[in-house]
């Protein structure tokens, strides 16, 4: 017993190092292997508060640009509205408006990152504003990501610029679907993989969200096809998609809640059994 104590006391620095280093390592492995980063995330009062203070000063510098984006979006929505009044039978194309089952919340981006291999965005809405895990996040130009963790007043968003993110997407002019992934290289491009080789892929075509996910409504813009190549096996296309959003500069975002999500998930579970 005495010897054990002596050993511990003699090597206390090394043992403490080993202990702390393995905690760090375990957290790292945990954050890489699971979809959710459970323990360490910036959706908490401390980091949220600090980022909030910075943001309250910072956002004045972007006001002009924010205004332009809003005016642009207003113009688009007005166009849609006036065109639909003229012919009342035409359904509004944008599903976020026509279908009542999506609830929309706006939020400010407190922290954005795009240089790491798994990027997270911190926003200023949380459980108190009924924002929960797996809600979709978009801007007027296109999709941003999915809500990952929430605290009372803050939430983190798993950006589409993440190796863990996989979002169902399709070609706008046909119904061929694929998965949206990111190779970790530049924040301008994402990759659409597993697209059937029968799909009519053309450079410049638009990619939108597919209807298969219960998170995003169908038909939200993602980006344009920049280039494409066939897979090694030759059965599928891998498409380089240039995002409509500038992921390095996001000010205000919309959070989408699909009210039917639970029902869809329950149905899918029962059919799987």
């Amino acid at each position, binding site marked *: 017993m005495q010897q054990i104590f002596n050993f511990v006391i003699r090597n206390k620095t090394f043992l*403490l190092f080993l202990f702390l280093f393995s905690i*760090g*390592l375990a957290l*790292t492995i945990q954050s890489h292997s699971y979809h959710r980063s459970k323990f*360490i995330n910036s959706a908490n009062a401390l980091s949220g508060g600090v*980022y909030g203070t910075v943001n309250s000063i910072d956002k004045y510098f972007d006001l002009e640009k924010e205004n332009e984006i809003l005016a642009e979006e207003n113009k688009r929505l007005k166009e849609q509205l006036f065109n639909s009044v003229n012919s009342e039978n035409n359904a509004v194309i944008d599903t976020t408006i026509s279908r009542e089952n999506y609830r929309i919340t706006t939020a400010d981006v407190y922290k954005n990152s795009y*240089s790491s291999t798994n990027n997270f965005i911190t926003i200023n809405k949380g459980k108190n504003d009924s924002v929960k895990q797996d809600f979709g996040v978009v801007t007027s130009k296109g999709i941003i990501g999915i809500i990952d963790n929430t605290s009372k007043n803050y939430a983190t968003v798993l950006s589409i610029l993440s190796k863990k993110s996989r979002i169902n997407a399709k070609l706008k002019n046909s119904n061929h679907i694929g998965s949206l992934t990111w190779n970790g290289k*530049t*924040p301008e491009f994402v990759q659409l993989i597993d697209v059937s080789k029968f799909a009519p892929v053309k450079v410049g075509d638009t990619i939108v969200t597919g209807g298969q996910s219960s998170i995003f409504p169908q038909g939200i813009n993602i980006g344009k096809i920049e280039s494409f190549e066939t897979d090694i096996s030759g059965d599928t296309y891998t498409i380089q998609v240039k995002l409509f959003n500038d992921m390095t500069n996001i000010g205000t975002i919309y959070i989408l809640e699909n009210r039917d999500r639970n029902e869809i998930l329950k149905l899918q579970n029962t059919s799987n059994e």
Partner: protein
Amino acid sequence: MNSILGANSVRFIVLLLVQVIICSHINFLGYINPYIYIIFIFLFPIREDRLILLITSFLLGMLVDVFLDSGGVHAAASVFLAYARPVFLKTSFGMLYEHQSIKFSNTELGSLITYITLGTLTHHLILFSLEVFNISSTLLILKKTLFSSIFTIILCILIIILFSRNKK
């Protein structure tokens, strides 16, 4: 004793805030960020208990992780740097370290640069290996390590020289 404690606490908080508010959002050329919070580990008083250094380094790294949503990569890298610090001190300062009489504010610039360079390279290599966490992307890890290290080393040395107390 109290002044050492005060100075280090202030340094801890200031470096943490500067890191998460400014330095992690520079993204020079898309991905190059300096990680200047390791100055705290470099300048931690040598005579103090190493256990305290390990624990505070871990806390500092963990807080940076919380702010940057990066899992535990900064915590692991900082603890490693804190543990390996005596080796770097010995190689760069030699005899001065043996006599426990280093004052960072009035050491030779050459030794200081060697010390900071060795430490930064080690810290960044571990940091980016854990962050990318993929052996097949070794080139990406090395690229990130090299460019961020250059940025960090220059900033660290400038900050240490600017804020050193002995103004002659």
